[in-house]
């Protein structure tokens, strides 16, 4: 726990200090929204129809990109080796890094989603609902991102490789995320069957990925 908290607070500090990595996901979101507006605009109707897809795709990409160098630096400068050698377990480390990603990438995205959706012509109240759905589905996206980052740590062009590996995993989340959001915008209940499946995907990824991610980190230290 000490370990996890120490890493988390150090990395948050570094993120703020060196160029604001925390701000990145948000920025990505803004660019994405602007492009969507250009592509589907100027009719608000078309924009609104495209909004669920745009917001989920933006979330998936932003989280995946933000995860790209989650472990890379610790690997290169030897800290990961030290942590593994001195702590024995890598679970606290994994936990800290996941929390970091959640705080710096997923959270800002979810919090600001309603605003960006307003720009796409979605009423604010519906935007809040969409953000709640993101909250349910984003964990799946980011556990996948953490796993693929661990798998590609230390490899050349690791970020792109991670992206390739992640795509098939992200696809189901996108499918249910978009349909849930569309259904909600069309008047269905917020927590319909799609939302339940989204939640199930998140739980499943939370349960299935840590073991594999930690195993992958260990292999990269050999």
């Amino acid at each position, binding site marked *: 726990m000490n370990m996890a908290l120490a890493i988390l607070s150090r990395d948050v500090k570094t993120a703020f200090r060196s160029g604001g990595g925390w701000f990145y996901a948000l920025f990505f979101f803004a660019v994405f929204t602007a492009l969507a507006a250009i592509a589907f605009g100027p009719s608000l109707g078309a924009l609104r129809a495209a909004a669920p897809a745009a917001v989920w795709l933006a979330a998936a990409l932003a989280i995946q990109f933000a995860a790209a160098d989650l472990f890379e630096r610790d690997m290169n400068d030897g800290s990961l080796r030290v942590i593994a050698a001195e702590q024995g377990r890598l679970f606290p480390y994994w936990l800290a890094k996941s929390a970091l990603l959640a705080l710096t990438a997923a959270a800002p995205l979810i919090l600001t989603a309603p605003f960006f959706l307003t720009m796409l012509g979605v009423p604010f109240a519906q935007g809040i609902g969409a953000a709640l759905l993101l909250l349910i589905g984003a964990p799946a996206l980011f556990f996948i991102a953490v796993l693929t980052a661990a798998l590609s740590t230390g490899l050349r062009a690791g970020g792109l490789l991670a992206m390739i590996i992640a795509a098939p995993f992200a696809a189901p989340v996108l*499918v249910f995320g978009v349909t849930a959001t569309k259904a909600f915008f069309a008047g269905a209940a917020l927590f319909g069957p799609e939302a339940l499946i989204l939640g199930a995907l998140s739980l499943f990824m939370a349960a299935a990925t840590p073991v594999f991610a930690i195993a992958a980190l260990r292999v990269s230290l050999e």
Partner: protein
Amino acid sequence: MLSRFSNPAKFEAFARGAGPVAFIVFVIGAAYGLYAGLFMAPAEKFQGDSARIMYVHVPAAWTALAAYSFIAMMSLIAFVWRHSLADVAARSAALPGVVFTGLALFTGAVWGKPTWGAYWVWDARLTSMLLLLFIYFGYMAVWQAVPETARAARFARILALVGFINIPIIKFSVDWWNSLHQTASVMRLDGPTIHPSMLWPLLAMAVAYTALFAWLVFTGMRATLIRQRLEARSARKPSRPTTVEAV
């Protein structure tokens, strides 16, 4: 069974025999299947001769799916029993798997043009096949990206297993996705009722593809094993302590 395959030398002896047999089965099966399919079987009622591409397409799709299951199974064996021959088998199945997946996609796309009017539509089956291709690529990329075989194997096992769990989820989600908003342009094929004159060549082609797959895997495994032996031969002598002195 397992122990028979656990020893690389025994396996190689087996593969030396089984490889040519598989190849012969492939040649005979494909010769019969293609001849019967292309010339003997009747043209399909609605699609005419273009439906003959079925004899290439359908078994390719089957084999592509089977190949991934094979990889996942081998990876599980490698993961649980740390069995390096299983890694070799899984790795050798990847390229044939990609080839069959690519063949299914390509022939499907070619077939799609006359039947659907487009090479590609985002239909459930097509989409999930495309995602399978991505899983294959990711798996191969990991083998490629990690130069040390022993390390690459461990990464690859992890990915193959997680990927396998993911396949039913993909299948399920994509079906769901597509069923919610059908597009008019997609002509649904609810499996043409198959006459024996079409079924036999199809089955023959399936057998031929499976034999081809087996032959490719055997050949790939033998090549890998030979390379590994060469590497082991050129490997350095281990260091040993010369002096151990007390204080």
